[in-house]
């Protein structure tokens, strides 16, 4: 079996999904692609089922927030790993803050369960079809989604600490 190189991976992704795969980069040797949220689950499924690629291990997933990126403020980053070829692949999706709904990956990977709950807990991204989507690390009564950039770390009502004095 031939080895899976980054070029081959990008090529086969483009063959399968065409225009749905865009913004292809290779930071520090890791293939990173962006897709739309309509295509994320079919893409993960296809990568999982493919006889050659065999991306069957979801290493991690997490949310990310770019408040200045209008219309695409929130994102989810998936990192999948093919043990057969020892190649990793990072897939990103971005969507609007007002419509933060993503299909769940729990049907494909059991491990996505808690990762999605964590993403919901911190970013308020709802995963449609998730069996038990509630907060995992914070208390249930919490109303904010604390990892979003509009919730800075320090108490904003304090007046004795002014940012300019602290080099921030």
């Amino acid at each position, binding site marked *: 079996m031939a080895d899976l190189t980054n070029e081959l991976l990008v090529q086969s992704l483009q063959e399968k999904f065409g225009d749905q795969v865009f913004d292809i980069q290779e930071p*520090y040797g890791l293939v990173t692609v962006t897709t739309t949220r309509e295509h994320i689950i079919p893409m993960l499924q296809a990568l999982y089922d493919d006889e050659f690629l065999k991306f069957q291990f*979801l290493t991690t997933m*997490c949310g*990310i927030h770019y408040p200045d990126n209008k219309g695409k403020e929130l994102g989810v980053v998936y*990192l999948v790993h093919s043990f057969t070829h*020892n190649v990793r692949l990072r897939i990103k999706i971005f969507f609007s803050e007002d419509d933060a709904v993503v299909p769940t990956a729990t049907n494909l990977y*059991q491990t996505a369960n*808690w990762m999605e709950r964590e993403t919901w807990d911190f970013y308020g991204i709802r995963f449609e079809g998730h069996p038990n989507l509630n907060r*995992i690390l914070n208390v249930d009564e919490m109303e904010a989604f604390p990892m979003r950039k509009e919730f800075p770390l320090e108490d904003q009502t304090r007046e004795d600490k002014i940012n300019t004095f602290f080099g921030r």
Partner: protein
Amino acid sequence: MDLVKQTTEINTTDTYVQELTTLNLGPTHPATHGIFQNILQMNGERIVSGVPTIGYIHRAFEKIAERRPFYQITPLTDRMNYCSSPINNMGWWMTVEKLLGVTVPKRAEYIRVIVMELARIADHLVCNSILGVDTGAFSGFLYVFQEREKIYEIYEEICGARLTTNMGRIGGMERDLSPLAIEKIKKFLKEFPAVMTEFETMFNRNRIFVDRVEGVGPITAERALNYGFTGPNLRAAGVDYDVRVMNPYSSYQDFEFDIPVGTKGDTYDRFMVRNEEIWQSLRIIQQAIDNLPEGPYHADAPEFFLPPKQEVYRNMEALIYHFKIVMGEIDAPVGEVYHSVEGGNGELGFYLVSDGGRTPYRLHFRRPCFIYYQAYPEMVVGTQLSDAIVILSSMNVIAGELDA
């Protein structure tokens, strides 16, 4: 009176009605080794279902990291898997070094390997001996804890700290191994195998121990992979995935060692895999100490490597660099990095997104505990309460890493 009446009623009906007991295992229970709760539904002594609740020591490390310069994130990583904190530190520094493009000299890499393997030994020793305690054997625990103490003494000799060490720097180590440290490591390598052999003879074929752990909480390789298992828990199920071999970092490709794998993925296999890994770690340390290369112990990267403390006190330039680095005055390049190391529990990954500022834009920790602990309910259903305790300690769930 009522109770008696009820009991007779239940016994007279045709369909045998049983009430399930709800049992709160935790949040603080001596056998959970940490603060997390398991709400178990019990049918007599059998577990019908389990619901884990976590987050009791959640400290929002990912959020705090967004306001801290790279150096000041080190103490956060320390406090994740506190049984083997040097591995977390070094994993974090390697991530930053990857982002900055700093090449670490060979000697520093070897020293890091030595320290990381010592940490792995300490981690596995604690896990395995506590498994012994949970099955009723307290002496093994006391015995190997002395050895962990010796590992901590080596750390103390290298850097002055014991549990949450601060012995490395971005670009290498804080200082070189002293002759006394090397001597202590050699002494440890010489004396520890006898203790380990004794520990193994105490458990491996012990009838009571084996009866308690064999066939308890098995998980197939397929399920383990689906659950995202890594580290000893995955290897016990028969998958030889080890980050040190698959994606070598810090000169691991120079060393000869085997990956122990189990077959059934039960508690006994997890115990044995950890024991065998301790032997492999000893092999790696022996090779590293024998072939310790000459040369500098840190990279020539003054923008990122903290100058030695003695220099800081005497040399103005060193003081300026120290200040600039600690305050994070030097910006990192824009980019995103994923780097993973083989932690005590499995693949410990750092996903760092930098927007070119002094702090990470987003930092995500792939904590192995957090990922595999969700398989716990599936593994305990159908077993007894005493088995659930043993399964929990054999998985080596560490609350600091679980919650971060």
